[in-house]
């Protein structure tokens, strides 16, 4: 029983990161019907930017700011902002010129952008693993009902659930959020309302990469080792989560991410660790066969 609870807590932690990254895929798909294959790189860039801010300068952010949590907050804000900028540039350079072309062209362009960013990071930082410094945060551990909960884990959960709640409130309650949902349904009808569709696309390419970056920073802080290929592995998982929840559906991405994290951890814990990554795709295939639109995806009909 305790073991099961422990696995669940682990699963939710990993899953909440998948969910954050999945949101970027799903929001861009919702508006542009485009799979942004460069999105995994936003996750990776977030991690590298954060690492750079923390260690590579003589005086990292954490040395300048006395309070560790405040320092980390600054690291998050800076890195997310930088990655948002990259996201907007990628949209301008790789996607906007192809807005009116066939659907295949922007996908190829997305893969190109992904390769470009990966190689740029590899050339800058080298091919070896980069390591976050040890002991950034106190290794406080709480025991709740026999389950070990580390401070780091609490932070990861708090940040990702907090960001998701904020995004949900933004999309549901604000005029700009409502305009995003409307644009996802019908571009021309949105234009008739006076919604500037280009501005909506820009907004989505600010939010998605920022959330992806947050995921990347947390993975860096949590596992401490990062590599320029990490965007591919995590991106694929998050993409799976987005499909599971029903791509284009924002709550779907959240549910899909959490579910994927939990199932994967349970599979690794009770069946075999070696097959951990395979579980994700077995689940994906099962869902695609049983429910091709994803768990919450019935609303997203293909536009004709």
């Amino acid at each position, binding site marked *: 029983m305790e073991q099961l609870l422990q696995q669940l807590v682990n699963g939710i932690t990993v899953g909440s990161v998948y969910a954050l990254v999945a949101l970027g895929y799903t929001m861009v798909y919702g508006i542009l019907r485009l799979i942004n294959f460069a999105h995994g790189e936003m996750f990776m860039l977030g991690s590298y930017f954060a690492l750079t801010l923390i260690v590579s300068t003589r005086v990292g952010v954490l040395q300048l700011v006395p309070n560790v949590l405040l320092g980390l907050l600054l690291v998050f804000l800076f890195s997310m902002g930088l990655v948002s900028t990259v996201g907007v540039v990628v949209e301008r350079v790789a996607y906007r010129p192809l807005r009116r072309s066939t659907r295949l062209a922007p996908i190829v362009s997305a893969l190109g952008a992904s390769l470009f960013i990966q190689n740029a990071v590899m050339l800058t930082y080298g091919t070896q693993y980069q390591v976050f410094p040890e002991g950034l945060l106190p290794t406080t551990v709480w025991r709740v009902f026999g389950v070990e909960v580390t401070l780091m884990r609490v932070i990861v959960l708090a940040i990702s659930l907090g960001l998701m709640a904020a995004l949900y409130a933004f999309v549901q309650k604000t005029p700009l959020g409502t305009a995003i949902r409307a644009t996802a349904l019908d571009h*021309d009808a949105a234009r008739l309302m006076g919604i500037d569709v280009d501005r909506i696309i820009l907004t989505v390419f600010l939010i998605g990469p920022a959330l992806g970056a947050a995921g990347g920073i947390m993975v860096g802080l949590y596992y401490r080792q990062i590599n320029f290929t990490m965007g591919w592995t995590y991106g694929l998982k998050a993409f799976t989560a987005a499909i599971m929840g029903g791509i284009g559906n924002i709550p779907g991405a959240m549910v899909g991410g959490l579910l994927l994290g939990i199932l994967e951890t349970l599979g690794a814990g009770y069946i075999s660790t070696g097959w951990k990554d395979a579980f994700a795709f077995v689940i994906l295939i099962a869902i695609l066969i049983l429910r091709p639109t994803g768990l919450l995806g019935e609303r997203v009909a293909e536009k004709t």
Partner: protein
Amino acid sequence: MALLEVEDLHIYYGNVHALKGISLDVGEGEIVTLLGANGAGKSTTLRAISGLVKPRSGNISYRGGSLNEIPAHEIVRHGISQAPEGRRLFSTLTVDENLTLGAYVRLRDKASVEDSRKRVFDLFPRLLERRNQLAGTLSGGEQQMLAIGRALMAAPQLLLLDEPSLGLAPILVKSIFAKIREINEQGVTIVLVEQNARAALKLAHRAYVLETGRISLSGSAQELLKDERVRKAYLGEK
């Protein structure tokens, strides 16, 4: 001076020459209807006025200024709104959210937006009952009310209505057309695209008949109701 003036408008979809030199004008306070068969270019004309398609040549002017270079999302700000063909409601959004989006360009002016919302509910009390329902779950008639109501939320001076009677039972058509007259009497100029020529001509002041991208006939609605060619081709008489 006319409120809206369209001069020699040419529009292409790819290689298809959809509008071949349409000219028309709409005066302040009028109801002008565009009649014609499917594919004659009625909806394209409305889409052009709203800026969703841009003309290859010709000019659309509104209150003396050209709309040609103004993007679609800016045109609403000039006081032109449209209830488009097929209604194009945001089906997974609530009735209230659809109405709010209709007023998207003037949401800062909260009091005036709520005033418009109240007027829409006065005009279509059914929408008030269903305000928290998803637009996609409304009946056909209610959806049409919402499409018109959403367009009214922009507080337009010029309202473009594309086939408001489409798919509605005759009794509903009658009630929708009565509402259109009411809206016009409140001072809104209306361009009405219709398949239901008889109902449209009874409502409108003037009419244009379109055939394959050109205007073949125009005149006052009364004249056209009596016109031999209109009676044969569009009113189903022999």
